């Protein structure tokens, strides 16, 4: 009897609105993706999504809560590359890649290396030769020690064999403000934060960290690091995650629902308008990506000395 009722509830799933935990404050890129899904959900999932912001601790508080949520399909969350990065520093409560279950990857977003447009550098090489002549003069802004942008800056300095000073900020907006005032010289920021500045010519992007160029016509002229001979590839992604041990029927329903939602041209247009690009991956492919990203970054944070830097702070 007991099993039968659970079975029917599973078959009817979802019968009530689904909560989506966004582990950052309202107003960020992650939040915008969640709200774009919220806008389109009813049609594809049969129930509305309810976005709940649980900010704090660089996303870890929201993800901790998701790990502990009932795996009944009524609590989902939004994930980002940080899900993989944070546990590498050994400061998180859970190892998210094994404690969470990806449902889908929604978008990918590379970082852009931008400089104020009143600086003379038109390409990476002129920047590097300037840095070599003026060691320690160039400062790059990133969104906090250990953040993807910090990893990128250190990786770039190491690959180009130059010394860059790092300046921690609270996020992409603060970095952009300081770049526009020329208080720092280099920033690693997501495309949506600086798209309007690049269009207006106040900031210049020297490279993108994606495997390929961006598809957005306003940003498609920006070359990748790889094209310019630097082996620097780091792409952030946003996805939908669930707590571990979701019943298979529910997982399949969710996977199907999100897959068709993401394939909808209207959804795609909404996401692209934000300066993001849709890149769907199913659950298994996402999981694979988590593992490969994790392995790659574990190596990078050791080699660039970031891990050591954070561990030194802890003791």
């Amino acid at each position: 009897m007991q099993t039968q009722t659970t079975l029917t509830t599973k078959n009817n799933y979802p019968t009530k609105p689904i909560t989506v935990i966004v582990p950052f404050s309202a107003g960020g890129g992650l939040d915008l993706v969640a709200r774009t899904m919220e806008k389109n959900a009813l049609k594809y999932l049969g129930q509305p999504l309810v976005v709940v912001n649980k900010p704090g601790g660089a996303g870890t508080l929201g993800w901790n809560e998701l790990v502990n949520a009932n795996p009944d399909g009524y609590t989902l969350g939004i994930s980002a590359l940080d899900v993989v990065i944070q546990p590498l520093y050994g400061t998180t409560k859970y190892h998210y890649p094994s404690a969470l279950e990806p449902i889908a990857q929604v978008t990918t977003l590379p970082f852009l290396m931008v400089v104020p447009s009143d600086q003379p550098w038109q390409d990476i090489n002129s920047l590097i030769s300037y840095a070599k002549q003026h060691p320690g003069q160039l400062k790059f802004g990133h969104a906090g020690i250990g953040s993807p942008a910090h990893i990128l800056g250190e990786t770039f300095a190491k690959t180009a064999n130059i010394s860059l000073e790092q300046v921690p900020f609270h996020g992409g907006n603060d970095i952009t403000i300081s770049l526009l005032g020329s208080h720092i010289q280099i920033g690693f920021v997501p495309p949506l934060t600086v798209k309007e500045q690049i269009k207006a010519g106040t900031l210049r992007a020297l490279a993108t960290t994606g495997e390929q160029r961006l598809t957005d016509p306003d940003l498609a002229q920006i070359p990748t690091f790889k094209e310019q001979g630097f082996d620097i590839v780091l792409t952030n992604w946003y996805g939908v995650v669930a707590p571990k041990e979701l019943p298979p029927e529910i997982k399949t329903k969710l996977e199907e629902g999100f897959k068709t939602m993401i394939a909808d041209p209207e959804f795609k247009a909404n996401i692209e308008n934000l300066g993001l690009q849709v890149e769907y991956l199913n659950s298994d492919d996402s999981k694979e990506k988590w593992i490969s990203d994790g392995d790659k970054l574990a190596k990078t944070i050791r080699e660039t000395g970031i891990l050591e830097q954070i561990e030194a702070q802890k003791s």
Partner: protein
Amino acid sequence: MDTLTMLLHGLSISIMPVNLLACIIGVLLGTLVGVLPGIDTISAIALLLPFSYSMDSTAALIMFAGIYYGSKYGGSTTSILMNVPGEAASVVTCLDGYAMAQRGRGGAALTVSAVGSFIAGTLGVIGLTLFAPPLAQSALAFGPPEYFSIALIGLIVLTKLTGTSTLKSILMVTIGIILGTVGLDSMSGISRFTFGIDELDRGFDLSLLAMGIFGIGEILTVMTASSTQSKVQTIRFRDLYPTREEARRSVVPIFRSGILGFLIGLLPGPSGTTSSFASYALEKHYSKNPSEFGHGAIEGVAGPESANNSANSATMIPLLTLGIPFCGGTAILLSGFMIHGIIPGPALITQQPDLFWGLIASMYVGNILLLIINLPLVGIFVQLLKTPIYILMPIVAVLTLTGAYTINNSVLDLMWIAFFGVMGFYLRRTGFEPAPLIIGIVVGPELEQGLIQSLIICNGSIWEFLTRPIAGTILAVGTAFILYHAIHWFINLKHQQKETSINSNLHQY
């Protein structure tokens, strides 16, 4: 002339029925958000985002902006009437607003606050209309060293804000700074002072602290006092509006603080709160009778309430002309814009003039609507005080806790707000005025972050820091101001000593 034409064109857009309706709904909701203690603007807009999905984008933006600037109007209501701030930006209004209410001048304080909000809010929108792009550009000249300098001088000047002893004020500021260090620190990548409690990684939210120490703290104070009930007075109609004397004394503070608030609003950070504190210090400094401050000086209501409204208008400048939010409120507005497919940036004015000017014009309309809504409300709100305290205060407590929960959707936050409530209660009982604590928690993190960033930017050299033109000027002016006061204080001390020694000499003979 061109601006005027565009503005008139914008006006024609903003008074289209659908947009006007959106504006009315927005400012009504904003007033509600402001009046209800605990519910902050950011979470209110976040909660309302889903309801706007089906709206026309211009109307939606007008509505969101209405909530945003409207919330600064109502914030002072509960500060004045109940000593419970409606918003963190209205904490300082409690000091004199509540004192006025106890003298039966609550209605006058509310009216001055509404009129001041209207004048300063409109001043701010005029600044936004005329000078938005150049102002945004000049704000960018301020980098981390400049923020640090402002924060440092601000901290020193604002510490001596209230009438209590300097030592007590410094203690409060220090506790504020200490509380501000709790949480995951992005400057080092580690958690500080969290004692293994995960949720503390978030740090203490300014609104949460303000609601706890002032809101819950005051409710506890009132509920434990034995004879407050006897104070309910009948308020005569003419008591609702300021006397000629009160109106005269409010005019200069409204304009002066309006301009101050506007300038502070151009800089990143929680400018609503910082501008109201700065305005209080400024008005106290320029007042002919500074000793009245803290005991119901009308300038102490007029100044801060004007400052936080013009600061609010000013925060729209970087949002609309650069596409970058400088504070939490405009960050959520940006989200609202982007959800509707509008991406603000340097090109917004030229590419979407209808939207830009329609929105600006709606802010003029909205401010007038807010004045029309708020003035009659004064009478109603004052009547609310006739509600028995044992009914009113529990309602306020429930509203505060509900609002506190919506900030981070966290249950633990409710326990913290209770903790800070008890803390606020004991602080008051022991003669501490907790307002400087709020300064500490706002300015402390700015100082730390600013110093770290500045020293990296200046290659670790203090000299390079001091020789940056703007930072150097701010620090020099600040030092001169502090030195002047120190010397002043020292001379006074000497005089007093001389007098006492003369007196004692006289006694000897």
